[in-house]
């Protein structure tokens, strides 16, 4: 038993959470905002809210291969700019997207 298994079994954390295939079996094709996995963790509790778990694992949904190593720094600088732009400009989504499309 490795350290991870030990940790997970010790704290009753369900191993399938780490298993992408099983996870997608559970949540694909419908991503359900209402699903909450709750597992006791020692004296505390871990709650896993799952609006987007398929997005974490399913490379068809969010294809990160577009972000090559050489472009990662620029990409996340630009992502920060976009995030900042949306936070500063409380326009509706379509207007913001239109502006961004013009920009890019």
């Amino acid at each position, binding site marked *: 038993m490795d350290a991870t298994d030990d940790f997970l079994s010790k704290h009753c954390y369900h191993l399938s959470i780490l298993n992408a295939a099983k996870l997608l079996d559970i949540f694909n094709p419908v991503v359900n905002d209402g699903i909450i996995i709750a597992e006791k963790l020692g004296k505390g509790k871990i709650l*896993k809210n799952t609006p987007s778990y398929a997005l974490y694992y399913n490379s068809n949904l969010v294809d990160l291969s577009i972000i090559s190593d050489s472009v990662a720094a620029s990409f996340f600088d630009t992502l920060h700019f976009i995030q900042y732009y949306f936070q500063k400009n409380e326009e509706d989504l379509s207007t913001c997207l239109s502006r961004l499309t013009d920009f890019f």
Partner: protein
Amino acid sequence: MRNCSVEELKKAKEAFKLLFSCLAKLDNIYTERFDLLFRELIMEGLFVEIYSFRKLVEADLNVIPNLKIKFKNANKDYELDALIPITKDMVIQCEYTLRGTLTNEKRKKFREVENIILNEMGLRCKTLVIGRECLRSFVSSDADLKMLSFSELSNKPKVISTILSLI
């Protein structure tokens, strides 16, 4: 923003065109949820979480993403971007951020989580911050923190050596 070369900017723009194509694909699958997904992915940082999570997994780390920890003896919940069980008695909490600074409030939260995981679960906890290169000077001034930039996440030896330096 840092200064980008023309070539870098061109690549970033290309990447964003593809990102929006990707969002449009999501829109086709989850029709009425596009605005919510966009908000989550871009505004609330889910895209950064997904990127960082997948890179850490590619470095052969077992990563528990996006979790909320509640403790009986704490008055509030703690939301973590990720938790990495690293040895039998140690975990690493990960914070992903696009921000260019690290606030005192954020540092305080790191310490609170480290202490509460030690006190409540008996596990040592260290903190890894993943962010843009401009954050490094803020992290390097704190001896208890380590940082990986988004570019470094693709460098498996660098990821592993940084993790090992926390142990």
